[in-house]
């Protein structure tokens, strides 16, 4: 496999062909904020937080789904990018019903972390206050659509790691929401193995363990990485 050379924020780096800009940045030690990216599953470029600027290209590119090319000159933290990222996070907050103070994921939420990271202290956009529901029909878990940011990590982890494909996305645009089975109550979906990977994959408090109260959810992301490494590299120790 050939190697591509490029620069990220002025740092020269060489990485194998086919790698994404996000992987290259990680290699170079350059942090890029993400929400829909999850190690071990495919990328979809849903959240737009990892947008970067590539010299000579007149649009912003999502680092998680853009492959590196020879001689690329990438900027990851320009003023323009900072503005867009903050706006993206503000829109995510304005779109759903995110009440951190009483959320199960308070203090353990990637959306909250990213808001801090991009310097969002309030949203300039009018909150939509959508009328969304909560499904706690499953014996062990629940999904609160108010807190869902449609990153589709649950969809991918269930399909690609567990192989059950319980989750999917219904509707379009602002009406989009995550469905279980054929838009059935989660507790009635036979395909669900109750493995809990979607709980660990969820970056917010949208999918949680039933009975969790304020700030009690602890998503174990390392467990997912372990499962992927175990499967792909036959390493069975954590």
């Amino acid at each position, binding site marked *: 496999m050939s190697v591509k050379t490029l620069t990220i924020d002025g740092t020269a780096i060489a990485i194998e062909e086919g790698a994404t800009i996000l992987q290259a940045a990680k290699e170079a030690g350059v942090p890029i904020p993400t929400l829909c990216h999850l190690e071990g599953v495919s990328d979809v470029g849903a959240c737009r937080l990892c947008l970067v600027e590539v010299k000579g290209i007149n649009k912003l590119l999502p680092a998680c789904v853009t492959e590196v090319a020879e001689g690329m000159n990438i900027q990851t933290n320009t003023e323009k990018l900072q503005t867009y990222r903050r706006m993206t996070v503000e829109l995510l907050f304005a779109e759903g019903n995110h009440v951190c*103070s*009483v959320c*199960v994921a308070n203090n353990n939420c990637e959306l909250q972390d990213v808001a801090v990271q991009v310097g969002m202290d309030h949203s300039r956009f009018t909150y939509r206050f959508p009328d969304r*529901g*909560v499904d*706690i*029909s499953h*014996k062990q878990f*629940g999904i609160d659509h108010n807190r869902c940011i449609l990153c589709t990590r649950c969809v991918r982890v269930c399909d690609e790691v567990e192989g059950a494909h319980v989750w999917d996305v219904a509707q379009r645009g602002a009406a989009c929401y995550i469905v279980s089975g054929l838009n059935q109550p989660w*507790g009635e979906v036979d395909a669900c193995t109750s493995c809990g990977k979607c709980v660990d994959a969820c970056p917010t408090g949208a999918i949680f363990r*039933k*009975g*969790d*109260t*304020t*700030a*009690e959810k602890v998503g174990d992301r390392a467990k997912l990485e372990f499962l992927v490494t175990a499967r792909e590299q036959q390493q069975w120790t954590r």
Partner: protein
Amino acid sequence: MSKTVVIDPVTRIEGHAKISIFLNDAGEVDDARFHVVEYRGFEKFCEGRPFTEMAGITARICGICPVSHLLAAAKTGDKILAVKIPVAAEKLRRMMNLAQITQSHALSFFHLSSPDFLLGWDSDPAKRNVFGLIAADPDLARAGIRLRQFGQTIIELLGARKIHAAWAVPGGVRSPLSEEGRTWIRDRLPESFETITTALNLFKTLIDQQLKDEIGIFGEFPSLFMGLVGKDGKWDHYGGHLRFVDSAGTVIADGLSEDDYASFLGEAVEKWSYLKFPYYKPLGYPAGIYRVGPLARLNVCRYIGTPKADQELKEFRDRAGGVPTSSFLYHYARLIEILACLEHIQDLVNDPDVVSPRVRAEGGVNELEAIGVSEAPRGTLFHHYKVDEHGLIQKVNLIIATGQNNLAMNKTVAQIAKHYIHNSDIPEGFLNRVEAGIRCFDPCLSCSTHAAGQMPLHVQLLGADGHVIQEVFRD
């Protein structure tokens, strides 16, 4: 010509309210009303949430007494799970409630009310506050602030934060007390006992001397009293059953369960206030007026169960020559309760169960309707939930302590106004006394309407024809 005086906002209480005083043609007070002017709608927007979140959500009703909602919600949750919580969990919950009562009562007495007692009803309003107290008596102010800190820190030691700790959960609590926490509480107890002894002696001196008349003027009237009592009529704040006594000390209803509250408590509504008017159903509205809170708890119990507090309770009753019925004695009752809380904390902190790791029972949705009750610093608090088969909230009713004192607060305000106000020219100090009538009850209007905000005051003097003659505003 008749007139109305409006005090808006009422100061040094928790929440927003105003008082209207109605004068007749002769310039005498006809009536006075205490209006609560805020609304938040917690009962509505909790619908659709999992019942397990109710403790965290309802605790947000109030920053002063979040623990009260936390415990009432957790107790209601226990009943939905239909589990018996571990012994350690109950003791820990009790400890947090004792700490909560201590800090809230200390706030009421030292920060909010003592400036009136020590600086004078008619002193400069700009200095008649906790800062004025600090300037006038720094040692007392510091001791009072540290007593409140003692309660707040216990809450933090248990729940990891002073305010809105979502620590009590359906089935128990999240974590026990640490050994370090235990040591801190033990070390700080002697100072807290010293402070409350000083405050009790000070208040007794005040009511023997300069505040002697206030007892007869500030809400002195017969009414029923309601509160939780334990076995043998022991003072309780968390468990036990409900009891009503009358002003003669006769138990008129006993062994009542919170589950049946709708059979003995009615909630009337008046168009001039967002605060409902609960009443004792068998006597009807408004004859079924009853009071809750520190004075009521001391009146419904037979004994407190700790030596120093029982001694103070005896003196409290001896001084009144029976059942103390003046709302001004809420302050006195509050101080006795702090002493009781400290003694109970002292007992609990030495109990091996409070460091036990077995603090949480688990269960599914086994009951679709449940009612939980707990004694908040201001009185008895009910949470009533209906859930679907998965545990999503369908209906919520919250009956708050302050609301239950609503009829009594109105009566108190009217009594004080009638005593002091005789024409439309009203000195500020008289209006302050009217406000102080409300402060006796230490109302938490944020809780009682499940509403937000500080409590400013607006007093209106209204003529018989309803026009405003004089208004006093304070932010």
